[in-house]
């Protein structure tokens, strides 16, 4: 038997040698014996369907020609995906086998790479091929100088989504206009006005005002707020966290205050859900959620149509107009040459202009190859959407803002360092928790009949700020992440 296997191996290797010679190009792939690639992703809903459709198309075309079969496995949220990947990479008991290809944020890539489980994509992407990608996006995946660990798939930025119908009603009644929404300070004031205005709609019940605003990603709010105000809270350059008290205080006060007083809110899973429920009239969120912004909201169990307004991400007064630039790329795990090559083949195909545009535009992502932005089809589709149904118009509007932010304004993505992933979640969780406790405390105070000013005083924002910082510090200490305060 062994002999047979040896013989077979000898024969096969000779055959491969022969075919390799005749093909002229070195490849580990064999169309007759296709390699199976497991792809883990965090896409849900339409993105998931779009990815699965794309994978299907790939398998039937390029995949079948070259001998690659991709199996896409949805891992739910980014968090779940990252946990599964980490467990797999670490070899935790009962963890699944390491996928060959997976969605990955830079922070995570760095962590997995430390375990020696990532493949340098430079081996599979020539310089010419790399040059096709938007440099900035590609840079996000480059570590240690030139190790390419993540290939960008799609990118997104954050912007301000507004239920224009609700806003207009309020704006007309209160002589407001959207320019107020360009700064966080303006947003705060408008939200305060909105709360008061809506509270006044029902004179019989006080304190039932509605929240205007929501923040989808609190971490992004903190990071980009810092950046707007000139601080890189995740300082990749120096591999540390920078806690600038003045800047952080401004960011904290705006969020904590408005959350406590009900100007801001977070009810459902995503802020778009709050829009649908009529609980919010605006929020900052990723362009990739464009499709989730509804064309109607539920009111008394019926559908109430609404208009949509897309605005740039608000900027703190006196700050630079930075918006976040984010998006998971995909990393290839260290495995066999066939699998690595197969994964690379898929990535090349999936990020090629046509494919990339199609996938990206399902929900409002941005393509990653610079050519895509000049691509006729891309622009034609945008125009078509702009003239299409309500839902499509919405997406077109988001693109307008997102493209403007990417092209014309500054976008920012923090440069990760070891442990920087923890920083994001610390920031997110700690501020969200602060907001929620503030809201609870304020509600209790409100019931005691205190005015807003009294409530704010009672809540003691300074003390709360210190509390927040303390939490952050302790978390960073726990994770062994260096930080400085200034």
């Amino acid at each position: 038997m062994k002999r047979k296997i040896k013989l077979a191996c000898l024969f096969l290797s000779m055959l491969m040698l022969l075919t390799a010679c005749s093909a002229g190009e070195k490849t580990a792939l064999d169309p007759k014996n296709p390699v199976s690639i497991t792809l883990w992703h965090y896409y849900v809903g339409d993105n998931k369907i779009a990815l699965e459709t794309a994978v299907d198309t790939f398998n039937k075309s390029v995949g079948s020609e070259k001998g690659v079969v991709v199996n896409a496995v949805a891992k739910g949220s980014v968090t779940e995906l990252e946990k599964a990947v980490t467990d797999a990479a670490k070899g935790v008991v009962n963890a699944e086998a390491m996928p060959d290809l997976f969605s990955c944020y830079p922070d995570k890539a760095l962590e997995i790479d430390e375990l020696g489980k990532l493949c340098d994509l430079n081996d599979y992407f020539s310089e010419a091929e790399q040059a096709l990608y938007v440099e900035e996006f590609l840079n996000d995946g480059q570590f240690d100088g030139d190790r390419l660990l993540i290939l960008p798939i799609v990118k997104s930025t954050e912007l301000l989504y507004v239920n224009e119908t609700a806003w207009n009603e309020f704006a007309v009644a209160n002589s407001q206009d959207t320019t107020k929404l360009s700064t966080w300070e303006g947003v705060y004031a408008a939200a305060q006005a909105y709360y008061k205005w809506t509270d006044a709609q029902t004179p019989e019940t006080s304190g039932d005002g509605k929240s205007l605003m929501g923040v989808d990603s609190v971490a992004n709010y903190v990071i980009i707020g810092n950046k707007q105000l000139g601080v890189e809270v995740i300082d990749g350059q120096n591999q540390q966290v920078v806690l600038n008290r003045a800047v952080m205080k401004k960011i904290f006060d705006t969020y904590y205050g408005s959350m406590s007083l009900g100007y801001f809110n977070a009810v459902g899973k995503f802020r778009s859900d709050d829009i649908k429920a009529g609980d919010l009239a605006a929020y900052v969120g990723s362009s990739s959620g464009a499709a989730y912004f509804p064309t109607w909201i539920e009111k008394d169990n019926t559908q109430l149509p609404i208009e949509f307004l897309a605005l740039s991400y608000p900027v703190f007064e006196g700050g630079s107009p930075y918006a976040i630039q984010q998006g998971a790329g995909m990393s290839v795990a260290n495995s066999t040459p066939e699998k690595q090559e197969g994964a690379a083949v898929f990535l090349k195909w999936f990020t090629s202009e046509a494919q990339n545009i199609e996938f990206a535009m399902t929900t409002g992502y941005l393509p990653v190859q610079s050519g895509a932005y000049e691509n006729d089809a891309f622009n034609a589709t945008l125009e078509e959407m702009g003239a299409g149904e309500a839902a499509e118009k919405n997406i077109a509007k988001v693109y307008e803002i997102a493209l403007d932010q990417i092209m014309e304004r500054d976008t920012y993505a923090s440069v990760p360092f070891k442990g920087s992933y923890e920083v994001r979640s610390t920031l997110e969780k700690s501020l969200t928790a602060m907001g929620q406790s503030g809201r609870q405390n304020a509600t209790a105070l409100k019931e005691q009949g205190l005015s807003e000013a009294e409530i704010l005083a009672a809540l003691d924002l300074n003390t709360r700020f210190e509390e927040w910082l303390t939490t952050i510090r302790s978390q960073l200490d726990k994770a062994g992440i260096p930080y400085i305060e200034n």
Partner: protein
Amino acid sequence: MKKTWTLRRQLNILLALIVIFQSIALLSALWVSQVFFMLDAEAVRLLNNTTETRSKTFNASMGQTIANMAAETEQLNAALILLARQQGSTPESLYLSDAAYNETALLASDALVSILKKNSVTGAFFVLNGSNSNKGDPSAHSAVYIRNTTPDSGVTSNYLLEIGPIAVSKQYTMATSIRWNLDIRSGGEAGDFDFYEKPIWASTQFKNSEMERYGYWTTPRDLLKDNQQVVCYTMPVLDENGNGYGVVGIEIDMPYFSQHYLPDSDRLYHNSFYVIAGMTDRTLDLDWFIPSGVLAETYLKNGEQLKLKSLENEGVFETELGELGTMVASARELKVYSDNSPFADQNWTLACFVPSDVLRENSASVREKLIYSIVLTTILAFSAVFVLVYFFTRKISHLSKYVRALSPYDQINFKPTGMLEVDDLTSAVELLNQSLVNVSKTTSKILELSLLPIGGYEVMDNSKHVILTDFLYWLLHLDPGSLISKEEWKDYYQRLTQNPVHGQENIYDYYDNYTKKQLWLRILEAKSPTGVVGVIQDVTEDIEEKHRLTNELDYDALTKLFSNTALKRESARKINDRPNKIGAMIFIDLDNLKYINDTFGHDVGDRLIIRASDIFRYFERFDGIVSRISGDEFAIYLHGYVDQDEPREIIKNLYTYGESFLLTTPDGNENRIRFSAGVAWYPQDATEVMDLLKLSDFAMYEAKHKEKGRLYEFDRDYYQQMSYLLENREAINRLLDEQLIRFAFQPIVDLKTGEILGYEILMRPLLENFKNPAEILAVAAAQSKLMQLERMIIFMAFETIEKRSKEIGDNKIFINSIPSQRLNWEDFLKIKECYGHHFKNVVIEVTEAETLDSDNLAQKIENIRNNGMQIALDDFGSGYSNEIRILSLLPDIIKIDMAMIQGIHNNVDKQNLVTNLVQFCHNKGVKVVAEGIETSADLITVIEIGVDYGQGFYLGRPAFEFSTINPELRKEIRNLRK
């Protein structure tokens, strides 16, 4: 000639054949045992097992899901019934009130979330009978539809609300989807809403049945119009009366279905895939199908009817699938419905497809290698055979070369080959050679000592001299051992063989001048590869002995008289010597040898013969050649007389001479020796010995018949008259064997009416040897063939009657029977069986005969009469003494012999005799026929006398056809009657 090949070649061929045979046997054994294909069977079995396991896993998993769903649905039913009661409403109208609906939706979500948690499904939904948000729209249905992207993780945070009130989203902190809606709408294409309609329909068909019975599976479809193909399973939501007003369902999207339910890990072969589809009668209906992956999607064409060909194993099929070529498919029907489900006829079959060549890859490669191995080993074996055979036979070749080079006078000294048998053989050959040398010496000596007059010679092509043995030197009176050249030998040989003995091959008459002796030599010569060898034997003694023996053959052993041959030869010689003299051939037959033999035995018979021969030696005095021909026949030839008187006198005296010779038989009697003799004369009667013998034999025959114990001389007239008796001995056999007779028919006329009474059948020979029936009878009697003749006549007569019964009509047929003969019982029964119906028309004629046994005849007549035939007595009055007694047998008809009728008109005696006879017969009631009526005058007389019937040429000649009576004759007869 048999081909001779070298040992090497033979061994090569033999061993090569063995190798070939062995390879073929191996191949056949492998083929017969199907070892080649065992791996195939194993692969198929493995495939089958995997599919079986997968189908069982699937069934179990789906069964569990369905059971969970049923439990959840029933729980939800109860909760909703309770809710409706609390609301003072009915379940059917829950959707109408906002509050009630919100509560309903939350209850439903609880159930859905529970279903999602427990089962490996990608979504769960609840659809109501109407829409809360669009109450007036019958196509809108309030629904809650929750999807779970990651069913396997057990995490609820990835739930996505596709349809349902925002309250649900809030309750579970559940994200809403892009296409989030409040209602689901029916009214798309027909059948699109089957997941709602079918289970409710089922619940109306089988009220109060278990929930599983109502469950319904949809085919894959894009239920939410979001490009996601899903399969759904729904159960009805029922009120307390079992009326359906909504459904609870699950969905499994295609990617998850294939990942979870048709996983890759199962598939042992590359390019294999699963598919679930409906299958009927070996046809996979691809109107819908659930593929396991890209291969299935690529190669299975939507809407196609994929025909499968059954293979040996149960549930295993074969089909052609595009580029993948021949696929082996293992199929199992899945159990997705209860047996009592109204949808149970919807077939879900799991099929696993594997390319045939992939499946059989191992087997094929084993086969290939096996063939290579066999070919290789065969080639190796061939080479080994050639090499080994070369070395093995080398020594033997040397040996044979050595032997070939040996001269007969060399000392043999074989080199040992190291092969036991061969060395044994060579030493045996050495021994044999030694023995041969000894034996040849011994043989020569023994030959010499035996004094056998035999010698040999050898003339070799490559030698000038001839080798002779001692005997030849002696025969030719040469010095023993002297060299004889070939030329000299030619001379000697010529002398030895110049007088070949006529009629005796290889025997030469040789007169030895030296000893003055007559010698006979047998000289045999044969060609040998190297020349000629010969043997010369002195056979003088043999030849002389033979001559003596030949002489002895001329004498009869018993009587020491000449034999038959000697008689002929010697008589011929005498006639030849003196042809102008007169001679007599006397043929003698002993009269009583048979009696003596029968009575006293052959010893006494032999004594009689010897005693008789003593009598016949009487002729030796007259220089007669006395011979015994055979048995009791003797022949004597006398020759050299000038007339017949002298020998006649001598012959006559024989009887006197013989009287004194007596034979004393054991009973004490002294018997005279009786003999009959015939004489034929040379040259009067015949000139050839054979003819003389024949004629004298005939004369003796005449004597024997006329006067036993007498001498008859040949009588040519009598001979010519009777010769047929002798000559036709063979002819009668032929006549009987080949039935060479035919019948003529002579009419018998009723002399009262002038009409024909009947016909007498008259035998006519078809052989020229016989001139008339009487001769046939005579020869037959002489040859004791009467019985056969009688049998033939009777059978042929009846055959003729049968054949010509139409022409015969009611006329009587008179058949002549030989009175002394009776058919045996068997033959008679045969006649009776075949022709019994003709008996009433048959008259059997019997004649008188000299040796008539009247009792026999009486019995015969009795038998004939008893069988309904009539009897006629033929030739009555032709002159036998017991006619009257015969008459007393009372035949039906008497036929008066023609001798009494011819000329009756002018012979008063005949008239009186016939008149009396007629009167006598008429008194007894016997009819009378007058035979031989040839003239009108006789006819008149006969009629006057009162004879009943007439026969004769005047009334009608015998003819081969049935003649009718001449009308004038009839007129004449009638006139005479008046």
